C-alpha cells in the first residue's frame, strides 16, 4: 500500500512531464527512458516537481537511482516520509 502511494505520486509527476505518453503499461524494472520519450530535461522536470510539490531534494549523484519506476519508489519512500508526506 505504502509503495503504491509513492508509485502514484511518481506517476502523477511523469504524467505532467510526459503528457503524451500512455503510462498504463509502464514496467517498474525497465529504465523510464527506454519506455518513454524522455530526455535529461524531462528528468530535471521530475526533480523540480519533487522539490516544488514535496520539498524533496534529489542531489545530482542520486539521479541514477531514479532511472526506473521501482527505483523511484524505493528511493523516494523514506524521503517523502521524512518530509511528512503521508505514505
Amino acid at each position, binding site marked *: 500500500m505504502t509503495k503504491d502511494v509513492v508509485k502514484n505520486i511518481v506517476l502523477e509527476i511523469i504524467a*505532467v*512531464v*510526459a*503528457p*503524451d505518453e500512455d503510462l498504463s503499461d509502464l514496467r517498474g524494472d525497465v529504465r523510464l527512458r527506454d519506455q518513454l*520519450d524522455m530526455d535529461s*530535461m*524531462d528528468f*530535471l*522536470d521530475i526533480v*523540480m516537481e519533487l*522539490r*516544488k510539490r514535496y520539498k524533496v531534494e534529489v542531489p545530482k549523484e542520486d539521479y541514477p537511482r531514479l532511472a526506473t519506476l521501482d527505483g523511484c519508489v524505493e528511493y523516494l519512500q523514506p524521503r517523502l516520509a521524512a518530509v511528512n508526506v503521508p505514505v
Partner: protein
Amino acid sequence: MSVIPDNQRIVITGVGLTSPIGNTLAQMRRSLLDGVSGVTSIETRFMGRVLAGVCRFDEKQYQAGKERRRGTRAGAVSIFCSHEALKDAGIELKDRDTSRVGVFIGVTEHGTVETENEIAAIREYNYDVKYWSHHHNPRTVANNPAGEVTINLGIIGPHYTIGAACAAGNAGLIQAAQMLRLGEVDLAIGGGVSESIHSFGIFASFAAQNALADHADPTRASRPFDVDRKGIVVAEGGALFVLERLTDAKARSARIVCELVGYAMNSDAADPVLPTPQRLSQCMRKALDRARLEPSDVDILNTHATGTELGDIQEAEAIRDVFAGCSGVFVNNTKSYIGHAMGAAGALELAGNLPAFQDKVVHPTINVDRLDERCAMTGLVLNKPRTASRVNVILNNSFGMLGINSVVIVRRWAD
C-alpha cells in the same frame, strides 16, 4: 518584363497566419471587409484589465503536449503559421532536402514573457532560485520561435529570428528573400510573430509613456488617425510566408500569390521612440526605386500607424511627401482591427491586403469618427471598404523603436 533574372525574382507561394480576427487569410479578410475588430479585454499580471488583440488557434493542432509544455507562445504561433503556410503552398517537407530550407522570423522582442513568468513562479517560493526552471534559457534565447519551428518540422537548414522592433514582420520577409537570392536556401519561411500580450511589462511601459490605448468599448480602442486616438492596443499573432525563387516556384507549378518586387530598410539615427518623417520617406523611396516603380504605380499603401499622436502624424507627413500628386493610391490601416501585433504587424498587415489582388477591394481603417487633419492623406480609406479599378502593387510600411524602418512592395502575379 522584369529585367531581373528569374532566379533572382522572389515570389510568395504560401501564407500561414493567426490573428485576432482569424486563423486563416480567408477569415481575416472577411473580418477586414466586414469591419470586425478583434480587440478584447484581458487580465494581465499586476495591471488588471487591459485591452489586447488575442489569437485563438489550437496550439495542439501541430504540437504534442510535451512540446507545448516546454515551448513558448511565440514558438506555438510560429509553428502554427509555418504549418499553415506550407500547406497553403502545397509543400510537403518530407519530399524535400530540408538542409536547403531556412526559417527567418521577425520579432519585436523575445524572452520578456518567459522571464516575467519565471520571476512570478519563484515569487511563490520566496524568490529561491532553486525553483527557477531549466527551461528558461532555451525558452528565452533570441532564436527560440524559429528554432522551435525547425525542431517541430525537422528543418536542418539555417534558422534565426530578426530582432527589428515593430518593423520585424517586414524584416523577416526581407531576410528570407535575401537568403534565397544568395542561394543559401531554396525554400524560405519568413515573416513575423508576437507573443507580447503575455508580458505585463510591455503594457506597463506603453502606459508609462502615455501611449497605451483604452476605451469603454474595446473594439473602438485602436483608432489610428482619429482625433481621439489614445495610443497602442498590444496584440499577439503571426504571419509567415513561404518564399521561393521564381524559377523554383515555376518548376513545381506552384500557385504564386504575389512577387516581392521591392524592399528597403533604414534607420532614423535620431530618437529611441519618435519616428523621423524624412527617413520614412527615404525608406519608401528606396523600396520604390528597387522595385523600379513610381509612387503613382502603388495601388494600396498599408500604413504602420499605431494610434499614437505623433507617430501617426509623422507617417502621414512622409506619405504626403512621397505620394504628392498621386490621386490613385488607396491608403489604409490594419491595426485599427487587430491592434499592434508588434513583431507580427508588418507580416500580418501585408497578408490581410493580399486578397485585394483578386477582389480589388481595399479594406478601410476603422474607428475614425473624426479624422485628425494632421493625418489627412489623399486616398485614405475611412470606415468603409472601397473598390479599386486596379490592384497591381501593394506597399507595406512597418516601423519600430530605435528608428528602424522597413518597407515591402509586392506585385500581383500575372505571368
